[in-house]
Structures are given as C-alpha cells and as structure tokens.
C-alpha cells in the first residue's frame, strides 16, 4: 500500500495519505484517489467526484454493534450460529445482493448458496439483468474503457445519465481525455445523448435527441433499418419515436463516418417497456454498425462491484444471476429465479441479503414477503433492510477498511487499498464462518432427515447420499 505518513503526535491520531486508493461507489471504480486519513476518518479524497467524496467522507466506523439479533445486540458468534440455523432449516432460501462487496466475499457467498441449495441472485437482475439476457441472445461487441479513452470518436449515451450516476465517466474515460487516436480529447469526439428527459448529461452533448417515452425499441429498429439502407416512411418514424426521420438519418450518417463508435447504455433501456428486447436491439445495431466502421456497446454499471458479482456467479455456476441451486446443479431462468419474483410470489422462506437494500428498492409485494420471513442482512450502515432483519451484521466497508478485488464496469479487476482498520468484521470473514458452520450442521442432520431429500440433493450429495 502506498502510504505516506506526514505527521504524528501523541495526542492527535496519525495523519496519513493513502495514494491511488480505489473508490467503489460506482462502476467507474476510479483507482486514482488520494485519501487523507486521520485515525478512523477520511478528511479528504483528492480527485473523487461528489459521490466519491460523499462515499469516503461518510464511512467512518459505525458505532452500532457488529451484530443484532431481532434488533438486540448480540455477539458475532451468536449471529453466525443463528444465520447458519436459518439457512440450513429453510426449504427455499434466497441469497441476494452481492454487488457492494469484494469478489473474494462473493466467491464464498456462492459456496454457501451451493451448500444450502439456495436460489442465488444479485442486484444485476434489477439493473442490467435484461442486458445480461440480451448478451446471451445476441452477443456483445465490447472493449475496455481504456480503448474508449484512446480511440472513441463517437460516444453515444442511450438512457444513461452519467453526469449524475457516474460523474467521472466523462473526464476519466469517455469524453475529455486526450487519447492515442483522439489527441485533442473532447474536440475529437462527438457526444450524443438520447433520452426521454433532458438530463444533466444532455447539457454535455453535441447532439441531444429527446425520445418519446417508451419508444426506445422503435427508435433502435429505425436506426437498424437506416444502417441497412432501408427507406423509411418519415411520418411513421415521427409518430413512433417522436423524432424526425431526418434527425435519425443525420445520426446514422455521423455514426457511419466515425472511426470508433461507442454506445453506453443505462437503465433507461433496461427498466422500460421492452427491457431485454430494447438491449437486444441496441446490441444488434452495434453489430450492424461493424459492417461500416468499428462500433462497441457497453452497459454503464452502477454499483462498485456488480460486474464482479456477474463474473463470480458466472464462473462458479455458469450463469451470471438468477440461478437456482436447489437440485444440486445450477438452473438459470430470469423471471423465475430472480429475487424480485421469488419474493413477490412468496416462495422463499428465508433469505440472506448481502450488501444491498431490497427493502428500499423492491416492489411492495416483494418487500412485504421479505418482511415476513427470517433473513440475514450485511451492511456497513443501517438501512431499511437491516432494520427488519432477524440477524443484521454491521460490516467493515470494502475499499475503505477491507482489501480485495473488484471488477470495473468493463470487467477489469482492480485491487483495493483500504484507508484504515475497523473493528467490525468484513463480509468475507463472516461468510467464511457461516460456510463452515453450515457444513457442520448439514453433516449433523444428514442421516436422519429424508423428508425433504428430493428438494435437497445438493446437500445430500455433499453427505454421500445419492440423489433420487
């Protein structure tokens, strides 16, 4: 760790500077932040944006107990025991979250899900899950953010508002940097923003196209037609998209004339009518554009390690999210094994929520069901989810207190450089201890229990009992 001690006195806590620390608040995962640290507090975060500054300056050590059981302080050991009991007694446990923790912790979490035959899902399902489905259906023409920085001369943001969600996206990766093939930086790039709302990002654009709400799919297919040279009816295009055909034609001409085009897309596409059909259309358009020039397409990922969650779950189970392990092998089916559905249909009878807040973000039926079942929650701060948890662990913050690996939104793994230690345990430590205890409990119950064996081959196989 690049740590420079600049001052120390007997009364004052040590003042140090941690160079090139990594911000994990959003998917940009900026790893060039210089932190000034005084004891258990970060007083300055050089180069961080408004969100990154709020992230670093508001994560001093939380004075809540490290574990609460039913709202009452308990030891971490008691919490681990209770959590393991809940998970092993459940007939349909749900594991959800994982996007704001290290990949090392994600890996252990997937193991626990495997041991207890859980339904495993991450916050991807309610951000870029539809994009994940589209990647499987269409494929992904992609690149790293370094390539965008060095080559991108036509940058199109579709249903994304990085000025508010990823404030350093423009300056660090996509618009402002002077790159190898764009030596004049912003001057060498054309920026287009396509959205239903004139967002803060639209103010940065050379061209802003304001779409009619819920017409992304139609607009994308109009562009596909123009890419293929198909003639379109102007009145129909205007009625379908709320935008003149001439505007789309002009955009297509510029896209074809560019040397390296990039689509960045956000939840304006994935959360709106059409969902994966919208993202499929965009990925297909990207593929079409490669007949004319070089074009790539990238989702703007939100949470600091949601990309890591996709990677880890995919290399552990073969699928990126929405995976059911109840039969002892992974089954993938968005809509069936995704957390929002499993809860709203009242299927899960217990849950473990790691580093996410479904009690704030899920639909009312899903929230009501989660409230009615025993669940375990991990979070550095108090949230609506930790408030209703049967077992709530207050954990150390990844990147600030905890080392490890996170994946930037372009799948580049980046190491964390923590600023100071914290007395709360890390997600990884608790998960490792839960995994160990879960294994012990499964071994103990193995011979006697056969009433639900057909539901639990994963567990049975682990104990040498043949499934079915």
């Amino acid at each position, binding site marked *: 760790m690049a740590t420079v001690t600049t001052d120390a006195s007997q009364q004052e806590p040590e003042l140090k500077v941690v160079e090139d620390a990594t911000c994990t608040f959003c998917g940009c995962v900026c790893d060039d932040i210089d932190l000034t640290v005084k004891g258990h507090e970060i007083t300055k975060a050089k180069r961080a944006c408004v969100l990154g500054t709020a992230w670093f300056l508001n994560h001093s050590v939380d004075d809540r107990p490290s574990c609460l059981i039913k709202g009452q302080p308990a030891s971490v050991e008691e919490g681990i025991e209770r959590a393991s009991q809940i998970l092993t007694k459940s007939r349909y446990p749900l594991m959800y979250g994982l996007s704001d923790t290290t990949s090392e912790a994600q890996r252990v979490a997937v193991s626990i899900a495997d041991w207890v035959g859980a339904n495993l899902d991450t916050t991807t399902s309610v951000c870029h899950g539809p994009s994940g489905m589209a990647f499987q259906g269409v494929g992904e023409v992609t690149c790293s953010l370094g390539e965008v920085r060095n080559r991108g001369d036509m940058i199109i943001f579709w249903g994304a508002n990085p000025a508010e969600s990823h404030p350093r996206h423009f300056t660090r990766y996509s618009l402002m940097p002077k790159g190898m093939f764009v030596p004049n930086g912003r001057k060498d790039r054309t920026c287009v923003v396509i959205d239903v709302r004139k967002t803060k990002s639209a103010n940065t654009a050379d061209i802003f196209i304001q779409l009619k709400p819920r017409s992304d799919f139609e607009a994308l297919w109009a562009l596909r037609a123009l890419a293929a040279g198909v003639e379109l009816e102007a009145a129909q295009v205007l009625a379908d998209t709320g935008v003149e055909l001439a505007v789309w034609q002009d955009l297509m001409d510029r896209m074809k004339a560019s040397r390296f085009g990039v689509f960045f897309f956000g939840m304006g596409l994935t959360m709106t009518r059409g969902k994966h059909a919208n993202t499929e259309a965009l990925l297909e358009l990207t593929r079409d554009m490669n007949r004319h020039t070089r074009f790539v397409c990238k989702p703007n990922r939100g949470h600091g390690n949601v990309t890591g969650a996709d990677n880890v779950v995919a290399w552990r189970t073969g699928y990126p999210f929405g995976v059911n392990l109840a039969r002892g092998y992974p089954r993938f089916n968005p*809509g069936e094994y995704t957390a929002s559905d499993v809860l709203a249909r009242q299927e899960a009878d217990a849950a473990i929520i790691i580093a996410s807040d479904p009690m704030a973000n899920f639909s009312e039926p899903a929230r009501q069901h989660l409230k009615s079942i025993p669940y375990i929650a991990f979070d550095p701060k108090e949230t609506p989810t930790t408030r209703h948890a049967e077992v709530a662990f207050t954990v150390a913050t990844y990147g600030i207190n905890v080392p490890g690996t996170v994946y930037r939104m372009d799948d580049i793994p980046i190491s964390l450089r923590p600023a100071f230690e914290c007395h709360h345990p890390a997600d990884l430590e608790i998960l490792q201890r839960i995994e160990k205890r879960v294994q012990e409990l499964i071994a103990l119950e193995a011979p006697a229990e056969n009433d639900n064996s057909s539901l639990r081959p994963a567990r049975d196989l682990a104990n040498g009992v043949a499934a079915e």
Partner: protein
Amino acid sequence: MSKTYIIIPGRTSQQGVGINEGKFEETYQSEISVLQVSEEDMAELELEAGDWVRVTSEHGQIEIRVKAAKKGELPAGLLFIAYGDYSSRLMGADTHGSGMPTSKGFDVTMEKIAAPVE
C-alpha cells in the same frame, strides 16, 4: 377523471450523496420524497413548489410534495422522482419473465390534494 402521466424514477446525485450519509438522514429522505413536475403541468394543476399531490399507479398510491423540474428538463406529461421508497410503492411486482419489474416509464394519475395533517 384525473389525467394520465408517465413517471420516470431515476438516479440523482443528491440521492447518491444521501445513500452515503445514511438512508435515514435528511439528504436522502428529502431527495426521495419529492416529485418533479414540468412547468406546464404545474401551471395546469395550479401547483406551487411544496404543494401535495396524490399519485396513483396500477399497483399503488403515494401522497407526495411537488417541485418544478428544471426548465426544459421534463416535457409536459412526464414526471420524475428519485429512486426510493415512494417510487417503489408505485411499481408492480410482475417482471414479465425478465426479473426486472417495469420500474421506469409507467402510467400514473396525479391530482392535487390538501397537505396531510402532521
């Protein structure tokens, strides 16, 4: 009959800052509990900043304060709200086989109401 609008829940930088300060703190709570309305729609319903409206979707209903959106940011007929408890209460549970509830761009009605008694 109340007029139909399209609502877009979304991210704001204030909401992001509020998440870091704490979800029960002022910044987050005030950001998620206000509805942004276009100038035209404010005028049509004779709304002023701080007035209350009842917003009803197919799946839920909320009562919430309004403020005028920045000039030009929202076309008439479009409403904006920062993601949070209020926006979630309007959202349906059905994901149409995708895992993702329709969380942006759904229909709601909006009517002006008297401020609730504290």
